[in-house]
């Protein structure tokens, strides 16, 4: 186990290195001169030249790349041109809000999706179950930003129940969380349903019922337990959606997280900041997937990690 984690971590570092290199090349392909964007159109040619010199923008790309790697090894992410601060100082306070939004959305999705999936899996022919399944098909078609807009119209503008932009309160977390979670709810519920239907007719389930076990105990211990691995896999596969969704939804609700920061960094051509944010997104994605694999072996003891 420890051996496996170690090997995965080494591979993870390799992957991060590869992605950062890829990003370094892509960012240098972006049109737009950072000197002009930072100093504004009114500065003189000499000032532009001095700025490029200071930031090392005149060096060949290979030199810039090596310097970037060297800095990265020492834990220095560089300094942000648009915020005039170190990248780490800009990013750090933004990490927790985004992670909190992701955790809330994921929690809500599991909280609603799993019970709904179990219900529709155990009573697949009931009218309610069919209605719920239809709802999932509809939810999967609704883009999260449009859902967010609709929720704001309904709950903030018409009913005046919830704030339409993030204000630091728990209440203002509700709409962004719902907007991100909707798709996950539908996916988790559908996955749970098919996993439950697969095991619901197994002999050991009938046996558990026959020996007089409570219905809930049969469901939790004998039906839900073997259905967990596919649900966990689904969550891992949707990690990218969670992170990507945060960009759009944070923008919609003026939520002070990494997604907002990313858009600001791109429009300011703030290379160092963009690289720092990329590092965060990629690391989070890879760590979630590592976690999923580890959980997987815990939930299903038949699976051995190699």
């Amino acid at each position: 186990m420890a051996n496996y984690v170690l090997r995965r971590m080494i591979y993870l570092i390799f992957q991060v290195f590869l992605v950062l290199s890829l990003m370094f090349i892509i960012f240098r392909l972006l049109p737009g001169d950072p000197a002009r964007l930072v100093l504004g159109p009114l500065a003189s040619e000499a000032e532009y030249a001095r700025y490029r010199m200071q930031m090392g923008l005149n060096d060949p790309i290979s030199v810039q790349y090596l310097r970037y790697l060297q800095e990265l090894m020492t834990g220095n992410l560089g300094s942000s041109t648009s915020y005039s601060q170190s990248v780490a100082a800009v990013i750090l306070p933004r990490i927790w809000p985004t992670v909190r939004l992701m955790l809330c959305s994921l929690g809500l999705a599991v909280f609603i999706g799993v019970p709904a999936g179990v219900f529709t899996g155990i009573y697949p022919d009931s009218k309610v179950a069919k209605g719920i399944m239809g709802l999932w098909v509809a939810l999967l078609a609704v883009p999260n930003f449009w859902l967010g807009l609709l929720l704001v119209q309904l709950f903030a503008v018409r009913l005046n129940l919830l704030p339409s932009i993030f204000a630091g309160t728990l209440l203002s977390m509700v709409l962004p969380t719902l907007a991100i979670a909707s798709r996950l709810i539908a996916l988790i519920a559908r996955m749970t349903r098919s996993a439950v239907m697969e095991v619901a007719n197994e002999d050991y389930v009938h046996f558990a019922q026959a020996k007089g076990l409570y219905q809930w105990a049969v469901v939790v211990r004998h039906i839900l337990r073997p259905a967990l691995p596919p649900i966990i896999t689904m969550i891992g596969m949707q990690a990218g959606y969670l992170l990507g969704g945060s960009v759009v939804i944070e923008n919609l609700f003026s939520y002070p997280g990494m997604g907002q920061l990313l858009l600001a960094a791109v429009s300011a051509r703030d290379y160092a900041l963009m690289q720092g944010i990329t590092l965060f997104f990629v690391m989070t994605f890879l760590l979630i997937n590592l976690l999923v694999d580890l959980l997987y072996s815990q939930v299903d003891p038949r699976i051995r990690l190699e």
Partner: protein
Amino acid sequence: MILKTDFRQKRGFAHGLIRHLPGHAGLTAGCIILLFYAILSIAGPMIYPRIPENLSNVLKSPSAANWFGTDELGRDLLARVFTGVRIDFFIAVGGVGLAYFVALPFGLFAGYFGGKVDRAISVVAESMLTFPSTVLAIFIVTIFGSSVWGLLLTITVTQSPQLVRYIRGFVIQIRNMEYIEAANAVGSRLSFILLRHVLRNTVGNTAVVLSLLASEAVLVASALGFLGLGVQPPTPELGTILSRGRTYFTIAPHLMIFPGLFIALLILGFNLVGDGLRDKIDSKRTR
């Protein structure tokens, strides 16, 4: 006799699909929706009249003259949305179609040859997949620019790695089949084996994936439009229309409802077709 049955089976995928359509409600509905969008995209400008902007007729609610109402510059929203449908449909179908041609050789080679070729292709594809597709799209679209073609290429770049991975998986399933071994044994050329035996047998599964990726493409393209990074106004991409109308939603909710509805319906169409095709293929296999 044998020749005759062989001939009958040669009618192929499309024929089987049409014959089986009535049996699957979701697939039928999805096909109808996509057909509707296709007709709207091709014949669009012939169906609805072009009404120029009219600043005395701003933000009007839906009426007999303007079925969807008018936007912040007094333009007919129906005409805007239908043109937007055309653009999003083109970006999604064109982008994913192009991605298929980019991904196909990589997927085929990685899956069929395995070994070092596979590892090299997979590592690149996997590392591109460590990005959330929205985030990667934000970076890529700034390189290609915010034109319709820029977005189409962005979709191609963001969806290709996924397609490579899927096609590779399908090919690996087929690679060790006996008929491949047989074809090798009788000395068929590699190109013949790849095209005739391998490619043909991935078509069904790939159709499912393409449909679902097209639905994701609509989502990404309209999300970029919504963030103001997509196709720029005055070109009416649906997400861009939504983004432009944001200020007026409280007084003119139709500006929000119609563009969003047409994005959702398009995504629904691709999802239904993808899921339906998968059901068809699965049921054929179990039968």
